Structures are given as structure tokens and as C-alpha cells.
């Protein structure tokens, strides 16, 4: 029983990582109607930036915020330079750009920071809490993730800029007609998604260790979470991310074993797409024939 509870708690902790990446995926999806395959690699790159800043001798949280800010700028630049020219291109062109971006970011990361596996520090105490149910890092990273998700929610709900960014994603034509600079809103969305990814990367790296392919599995879980919650629903994606974390942990411990855990992500993806393509909280899309 204790083992079971522990599995659920650590599932929630990893679920927070998936939820953040899932949210980043959904933000880009809402604005572009495509899934950014490079979201995971961008997060890995951000984590290396944080590690570099830490190696410069900066305190952990300064490096954390620095990586957040740099990732934001990189996200904006990627949108302006790479995505803007293909904004009205056919689907396959965009998919090609996303795949290319994935390969480029992955290779650049390996080239800059080499392919060896590196340790990444955790800012939280390395001891078991609450009678061994939860580790300091699990509790701390869940708290950080929740703070980030809540801030993003409050930003989109209660600020002018957040409202304008939502409007630009939903209805670019009408947004221009009220004076919203739609192009910049999309770029800010990319920046924010990249910055959220940097948080996810920094929180997961102490557990899985840092290498250029660190996020590729995590992106799959996050994608499963986003689909499970509904690819066009930010709240759904966050809940889906947490659910996938728990499902993955329980399934790995009691059903398929740790070696086949990644299969669970694919099972979830296929199950959702077959049975309920709109996800738990997504909008159903009807088309007239």
C-alpha cells in the first residue's frame, strides 16, 4: 500500500513536467494548429543554458530565471525567423519546418554542449519527507510547476496582454480589427511556450540526467497528456499531463514494467484518437459534408 501511494505521488511529480510541456504544446497548437515537435528539444537546450549559467558560478535560482528569460527570447526569435515565413503555407510545409527545427536544435545542443550525460543540480534538499512518501525534489518541483501553471493561467485570464494573445490565437482577423498586433502576439506565445519548457527541463533534469535527447521521451508523454485532456484546451492539457504521469508510474510499477513504460504513452495516444479524438475537455469539431 505504501509503495502504491508513493507511486502515485511521484507520478504527480513527473506529471507536473508533462503538464508544463503539454501546456506549451497546446499554446502553440492554438495559435498555429500544428504540434511543435521541437518543443522538447527547445526545453533541453534551455536546460543546458541553465547549467552553463550555474557553471559560471551563478546561484541556482538566478540561473533558473536567466534560462527562463533567454528561452523566451529564443522562442520569439524562432517564431519571427522560421515560423513567420511559413504562416500561410500548406500543412506539410509547417510539419517539415517543425521536424527540421527538432533536428537543428538537437544537433546544435549536442555540438555546443557535447553528447555526454551530465548531472544537473536540484535546488531542493535531498531527503525523504513525510515518512518517506515523497522526496524533497519531488515536492519542490511539483510546487514550482504548479506556481508556473497558475501564473500562466492568471496571466491569460486577467491581463490585457493575455487577453490579446488569446484573441490573436482564436480569431486573428477580428483581432487586427481592434488594433491587436497579431504577429507580435504569436511571437510572444512562442516565447512563453519556450520559457515554460525551460522550467520543465530544469525540474526534470536532476531526475533523468541531462543529455541532448533528454526530452524526447518526455515530449511523447506530454503529447499523450495534451491529447488526453484535449489538444485545444490548456486546462485539459495540464490535467492530462498529470494523469499521464500517474498512469505511467502505476503502469510501470504494476503492469508493463519500467522497460515498456514509454509504450503507455503510445497506447494512450492511440486510445484517445480512436475513442475520443477531442480529448476529455477539448471542443468537438464538426464539419459539414
Amino acid at each position: 500500500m505504501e509503495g502504491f501511494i508513493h507511486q502515485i505521488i511521484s507520478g504527480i511529480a513527473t506529471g507536473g513536467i508533462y503538464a508544463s510541456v503539454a501546456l506549451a504544446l497546446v499554446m502553440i497548437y492554438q495559435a498555429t494548429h500544428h504540434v511543435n515537435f521541437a518543443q522538447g528539444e527547445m526545453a533541453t537546450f534551455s536546460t543546458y543554458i541553465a547549467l552553463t549559467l550555474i557553471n559560471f558560478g551563478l546561484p541556482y535560482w538566478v540561473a533558473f530565471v536567466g534560462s527562463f528569460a533567454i528561452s523566451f527570447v529564443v522562442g520569439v526569435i524562432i517564431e519571427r525567423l522560421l515560423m513567420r515565413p511559413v504562416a500561410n503555407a500548406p500543412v506539410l510545409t509547417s510539419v517539415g519546418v517543425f521536424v527540421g527545427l527538432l533536428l537543428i536544435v538537437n544537433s546544435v545542443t549536442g555540438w555546443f554542449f557535447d553528447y555526454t550525460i551530465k548531472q544537473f543540480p536540484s535546488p531542493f534538499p535531498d531527503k525523504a519527507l513525510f515518512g518517506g512518501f515523497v522526496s524533497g525534489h519531488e515536492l519542490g518541483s511539483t510546487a514550482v510547476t504548479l506556481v508556473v501553471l497558475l501564473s500562466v493561467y492568471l496571466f491569460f485570464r486577467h491581463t490585457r496582454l493575455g487577453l490579446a494573445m488569446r484573441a490573436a490565437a482564436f480569431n486573428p482577423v477580428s483581432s487586427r480589427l481592434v488594433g491587436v498586433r497579431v504577429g507580435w502576439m504569436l511571437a510572444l506565445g512562442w516565447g512563453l511556450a519556450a520559457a515554460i519548457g525551460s522550467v520543465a527541463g530544469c525540474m526534470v533534469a536532476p531526475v533523468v540526467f541531462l543529455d541532448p535527447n533528454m526530452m524526447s521521451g518526455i515530449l511523447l508523454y506530454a503529447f499523450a497528456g495534451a491529447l488526453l485532456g484535449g489538444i485545444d484546451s490548456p486546462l485539459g492539457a495540464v490535467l492530462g499531463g498529470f494523469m499521464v504521469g500517474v498512469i505511467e508510474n502505476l503502469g510501470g510499477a504494476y503492469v508493463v514494467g519500467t522497460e515498456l513504460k514509454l509504450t503507455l504513452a503510445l497506447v494512450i495516444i492511440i486510445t484517445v484518437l480512436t475513442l475520443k479524438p477531442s480529448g476529455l475537455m477539448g471542443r468537438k469539431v464538426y464539419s459539414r459534408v
Partner: protein
Amino acid sequence: MTALLEVKGLHAAYGETKVLHGLDFAVQQGGVTALLGANGAGKTTTLRALCGMVGTQGEINLGGKRIEGMATEDIVRLGVAHVPDGRGTFMELTVEENMRLGAYTRPAREATADFEKMFGYFPRLKERFRQQAGTLSGGEQQMLAISRALLLRPRLLLLDEPSFGLAPLIVREIFDIMRRIRDEEGVSILLVEQNASLALAFAEDAYLLETGRIVIAGKASDISKDEGIRRSYLGY
């Protein structure tokens, strides 16, 4: 009277397809100008051309400033509010958020005061304030679209078929309120309508479009009295 908007030799095209072939028209300061014509005559395209939403050639002069070729957002920021065809509602957002977006270019405090004025014109928006805009009826969405445009405090209001798809009673209600708006806000209006009798009763000047060209221009009252024009072009 001076013209707020003056258009000379306006051409517009969607890619290769030319839609407007050299329009000349004007909207007087504080006046209402109607743009009439059948389906496909180029009325909606004319409004889109004024807002930089389609590629154009020719001169567009707004209060002494040339605005052709400018980005839509920048034209809007010069005080041009466009109630587009299909009403342009932000379906996923609430009525309140739709109205906040209307006032996006202005300080938030001013906007909140203006909300009350909009509720004066359209009390139903107050009842629906927290509701998702996609759940509103067509008439209510039209009211919301007009409010969103007015919250910009525009100099020029472009209205694309405000009567479209609405019950006659609602149409009358909306046009009655538009008269109040014209008198109280001092805004100049360019109105596109298929319902010619309605538009001519509201406007002072009118232009008749046929396949991308202006075929008749004049005072609205003269045009509505001319039986020949009425029979051959306006169909009533």
C-alpha cells in the same frame, strides 16, 4: 462640409482576381454614406480595402493622411472601426472580454466608463456580460460587434450589412440605435447594405456599385425618389 474619407481610383484584387476597378467616393465628416449593390458587386471588398485587408491600388485619404498600404492594425489605430461581415465575434471569449478587446488601444479606465454607455445603447449586453459570446443570438452578436467597434472611439465606422440574417424587428431596433449613435458620438459612417430602402433612409449620400464600379452617385434622398434607379438596381 468636409470629407473625412476620400478615395480615388481604388482598385482591389484577391490574388489574380480583380474585384474593384477604380472607385472614387467620399464620406463626409459626421455624415452617413451608403454603399449599395447586389451580391458580388464589391461592397465588402471595398470595406476590406479601406482597412488594408486586401491588396489595393489607388489613393485612400483619411483626414488628410494617406493610409493605403498600411497594416490593418495601424489603420485601426488611426480611428477606423470595422464591423465586418459575419460580425467577427470572438466566439470563445465572454461578452466582457469582447468589449475589452474593442477598447484594447485605449487606457483601461476610460474603457470601463464607456461600457456603461454601450449598455445604454444595448441593455441586453449588460444581461449577457459574463456569458460566452458564441452563445449570443445573431442580433445580440451584431450589437456586440457595433459596441466593440464604438469602444475604439472611432472617427470612421465601417458597417458591413448590419441587417444580415436578422429578423425585421431586430433590424429596426439596431437602425434606431445607430441613429442615436450617429447623433451622440459624432462618428462618420460608411454603411454597406443589401437592404437599399433601409440604407437610403439612414444615409445622406449613396453610391451604387455594380461589378466593381460605381454606376450611380448622389444624395440618398434623390436616389430613393428616382423610380428608374429603384426599379432597375434596387428592386423595390
